[in-house]
């Protein structure tokens, strides 16, 4: 029986030696629309070290995908605009990089996998053509060399008979196979950072297990950093080393994966954990977070989570909490966990 052990052994990068590969500081990405300014990413900071998987989790509209698109500079501009902050990647600020430089980095040093493998592949070119395009541009391979490289990559991502499938079109493949092609394409130029935006959301669980296993093994082989964006806490638990929780365009909590799942501190994170049914059983009523994610055009004042928070007080409605380090790299943005704040009461959220 083919068995693969699912473990989250500490990667080389988890000790955080040296400087981070990706260092995002106070990133602000806004969309200027006719109805007003949407602050899609509002002061987000986090880092990723080589070999590390950083999970970014949050509900739809929380800004997790816009963060990824900002790193790749793939935002529609206008209406989108990076209004502030910096994205240091391998010592270079991507916010100020020229479009020509970004074209070299995109697909070269940073690879990206999107959620929907059907719409992100070009239907009129063979998958081989599409992988070869990337390696021609970034690795300067030509002709047979490029084709052989494409076949190698298809073999590496576990596509059976790659010599034949390299000449197939995306519609001839299943969803899982297309996602493998996307991964082959993203990894074809040996990126240092792979951004995976909901890479398995459109796939069945058995195929999801194959794809996550594949990303994990390629990561340890190639030593790249992975930014895993998902709403699925199970996927996060199984892939990430460190987790960033986003809510309403901000980071509300950040910690090592075991610490975060074992001792979540922010009321939003705690609510999220309680609202998923456990696969291990139990038919108790699910706890829910009341209300819905706020409209980004009219975010609430103070802490943006306060209208849905059971602990909210007057103070929360007026003042926005800061993202503070509670020790050992566990950060939380909540007045209850702010030792110098007037509401400090960590017992309530532990």
């Amino acid at each position, binding site marked *: 029986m*083919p068995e693969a052990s699912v473990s989250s052994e500490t990667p080389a990068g988890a000790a955080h030696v040296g400087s981070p590969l990706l260092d995002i500081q106070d990133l602000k990405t806004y969309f200027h629309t006719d109805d007003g300014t949407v602050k899609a990413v509002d002061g987000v900071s986090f880092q990723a070290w080589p070999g590390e998987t950083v999970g970014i989790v949050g509900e739809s509209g929380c800004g997790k995908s816009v963060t990824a698109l900002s790193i790749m500079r793939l935002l529609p501009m206008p209406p989108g605009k990076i209004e502030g902050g910096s994205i240091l990647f391998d010592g270079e600020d991507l916010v100020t990089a020229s479009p020509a430089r970004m074209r070299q980095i995109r697909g070269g040093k940073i690879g990206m996998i999107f959620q929907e493998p059907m719409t992100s592949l070009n239907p009129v070119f063979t998958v081989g053509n599409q992988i070869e395009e990337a390696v021609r541009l970034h690795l300067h391979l030509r002709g047979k060399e490029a084709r052989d490289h494409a076949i190698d990559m298809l073999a590496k991502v576990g596509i059976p008979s790659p010599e034949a499938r390299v000449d197939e079109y995306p519609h001839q493949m299943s969803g899982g196979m297309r996602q493998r092609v996307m991964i082959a394409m993203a990894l074809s130029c040996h990126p240092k950072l792979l951004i995976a935006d909901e890479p398995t959301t459109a796939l069945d669980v058995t195929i999801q297990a194959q794809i996550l296993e594949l990303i994990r093994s390629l990561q340890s082989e190639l030593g790249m950093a992975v930014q895993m964006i998902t709403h699925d806490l199970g996927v996060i638990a*199984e892939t990430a080393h460190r987790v960033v929780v986003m809510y309403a365009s901000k980071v509300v909590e950040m910690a090592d994966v075991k610490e975060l799942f074992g001792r979540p501190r922010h009321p939003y994170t705690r*609510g999220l954990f309680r609202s998923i*049914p456990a696969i*291990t059983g139990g*038919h108790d009523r*699910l706890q*829910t977070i009341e209300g819905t994610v706020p409209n980004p055009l009219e975010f609430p004042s103070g802490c943006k989570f306060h209208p849905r928070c059971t602990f909210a007080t007057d103070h929360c409605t007026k003042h926005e909490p800061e993202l503070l380090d509670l020790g050992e790299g566990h950060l939380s943005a909540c007045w209850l966990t702010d030792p110098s704040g007037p509401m400090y009461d960590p017992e309530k959220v532990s």
Partner: protein
Amino acid sequence: MSGNGDLLVVRNLKKYFPIRKGVFSRVVAQVKAVDNVSFHIDRGETLGLVGESGCGKTTLGRAILRLIEPSAGEIAFDGVDVLSLKGAAMRRMRRRMQIIFQDPYSSLNPRMTVLDIVGEALHVHGIARGREREERVKQLLERVGLASRYVNRYPHEFSGGQRQRIGVARALALNPSFIVADEAVSALDVSIQAQVINLLVDLREEFGLSYLFIAHDLSVVRHISDRIAVMYLGEIVETAGSDDLFDRPLHPYTEALLSAVPVADPTRERARIVLTGDVPTPIDPPSGCHFHPRCPLVEKICSEVPPGVTDAQNGHTFRCHVVARQFPDEATTPVESAAP
């Protein structure tokens, strides 16, 4: 087959879609979307139906309501043979069987107000008109957690979770006893999903509803279901009580499916069975046991003979040649005479 509690009994249901080609539209092949499926649902019971995309679970749900006409088989709802009903009689039957769809965006007509969406069935079935209808719709909205003042709004004015509540209200409008929930919470965010699941559970208690709960998220299915049926390529390969299925999966496909689910616990280490390959096409399914090309336990017999139904006690049944050997011979009903 259980006793008098049955609300719905499905026997040997088939839905084949013909593939036509050429000038004379000759039938060249059949897509066997649902192939010889039998199961039952008791009053007040929730049967979860799981399986990968393309396994036929949505077709099965729609065939039961005759939204898609089944090719063969029997459906008995509360003792009535549903497939023999015609015209007005079928319409009356539909009052008792409703469906909630997956996509809260495409399943609501954007040009209709909530009053018309939820109240349409009341009008069609001549149950309530005018003020009375509006009052009834307002009650339904309140019941599913929406303010009754929203009655004249249009779908685009609601969030995904609210739209799904409208879909639930529409399904409830005719006081049904059975609802097919086809991936009813799959498109929703985690925190909203929990709200809608709780709503479905409350309504089940309050109105004594039975659900066929179709979903691919196994933790959600386990949470809401009393029993679970696992489908693979048009066939049900295993049925069991929901805790029993998770604690003691007998079919190798169920075992692989359960082990593939990512668990929100980073400290948990476990052996995962990674299945190779994709679900084969239902146009020309593999011979014998449909699962044999991907099965870790495969033997010679698996590609030759379709496995019969083995009864593993307590309503736990499965179809696998290899695992069946752990049980006495008489527990297995060969496929030719396989009764549900």
